[in-house]
């Protein structure tokens, strides 16, 4: 790590040297003379040993360049707040305020988008009426059902629709409202230890008018391969 750091600094330092060769080499020498001693302490404090001794000059230059550029940028835009604090003209104030405002908007939008996404995820994961929660419950019921176990073999696994990237964790679902009650239909797939046997689980939930919770109306499993049949896991119609 230290190695790569030193390398990088050395690379940058080379650029810096070029640059100073073109521009104001006197100025950098002056500043270097002024600041060399504390910086070299810092540098030796950071690195240690012979590597540091060799590379010290590079590191110093690099840092100086950084500092200078940092100093230079605000001088251009804010026109030296250290020298004369109260004399920021109205135009500059407006400019600065506009800049701040733009950044604020960007930050607020970012936070809003992140919050919205997190809200969607948490709703999906924790609310009891979300498709993935219902899918989990229905899968548990299928796993506990003796006939499903008998047909598919013991470790039963469930998955949803396959996306292009080989993810199968989204189950397909339809929500609709009938007689003023919310219904949700859900479809997912199960596989057991039996080879080449795939089943499709269809389930429908209905909202209970008193408690507002979802309850299963039916769960049944279609076996998709040749001896086709249907196993009804639960039917509360």
């Amino acid at each position, binding site marked *: 790590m230290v190695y790569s750091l030193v390398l990088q600094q050395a690379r940058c330092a080379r*650029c810096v040297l070029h640059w100073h060769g073109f521009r104001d080499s006197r100025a950098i020498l002056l500043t270097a003379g002024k600041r060399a001693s504390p910086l070299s302490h810092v540098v030796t404090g950071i690195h240690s040993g012979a590597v540091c001794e060799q590379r010290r000059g590079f590191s110093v230059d690099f840092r100086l360049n950084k500092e200078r550029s940092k100093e230079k940028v605000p001088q251009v835009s804010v026109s030296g707040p250290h020298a004369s604090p109260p004399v920021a003209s109205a135009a500059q104030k407006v400019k600065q305020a506009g800049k701040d405002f733009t950044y604020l908007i960007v930050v607020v939008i970012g936070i809003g988008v992140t919050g919205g996404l*997190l809200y969607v*995820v948490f709703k999906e994961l924790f609310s009891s009426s979300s498709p993935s929660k219902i899918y989990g419950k229905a899968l548990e019921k299928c796993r506990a059902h003796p*006939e499903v176990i008998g047909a598919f073999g013991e470790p039963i696994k469930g*998955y*949803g629709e*396959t996306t292009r990237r*080989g*993810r199968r*964790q989204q189950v397909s679902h339809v929500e609709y409202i009938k007689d003023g009650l919310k219904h949700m239909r859900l479809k997912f797939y199960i596989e057991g230890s039996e080879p080449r046997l795939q089943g499709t689980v269809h389930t429908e939930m209905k909202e209970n008018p008193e408690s507002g919770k979802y309850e299963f109306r039916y769960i049944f499993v279609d076996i998709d391969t040749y001896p086709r049949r249907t196993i009804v896991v639960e039917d509360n119609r």
Partner: protein
Amino acid sequence: MEEYVREPCPWRIVDDCGGAFTMGAIGGGVFQAVKGFRNAPVGVRHRLRGSANAIRIRAPQIGGSFAVWGGLFSTIDCGLVRLRGKEDPWNSITSGAMTGAVLAARSGPLAMVGSAMVGGVLLALIEGVGILLTRYTAQQFQNPNPLVEDPSQLPPKDANHSHRGFGQYQ
């Protein structure tokens, strides 16, 4: 649908690894191109050369670290699928967190926790995008109205007959 009869899981690791490498190399290449351009000495030739240099040196590194991330993530994801026998968003969030933890393992437990949280939140965000996308596309593709009415004819018994039983056969 037809081409997905095969299990995606063990193959997905290679797939994700390569995808992550490509993504990292291209994205990192663009980033490093700009960075190299700006850091180079004045002059178009110097700047272009600096940009090319930065890409040459850094882009494969970035791609490589992305590939490590993707491969480990996918491996853990597949392991979780195998263990839990279920595929849902929890898998990818957990494996994102675990990948972050594992890759920070050399810098101590505190860094592991932090990096695990970053990984988990990141994957949760990606998962959220995925959920929103599927919801949006699902709304576009299937119109729910025609299949609302009949309570699908596959379980051959009708409502209101009130004999509920297990083990229907045909």
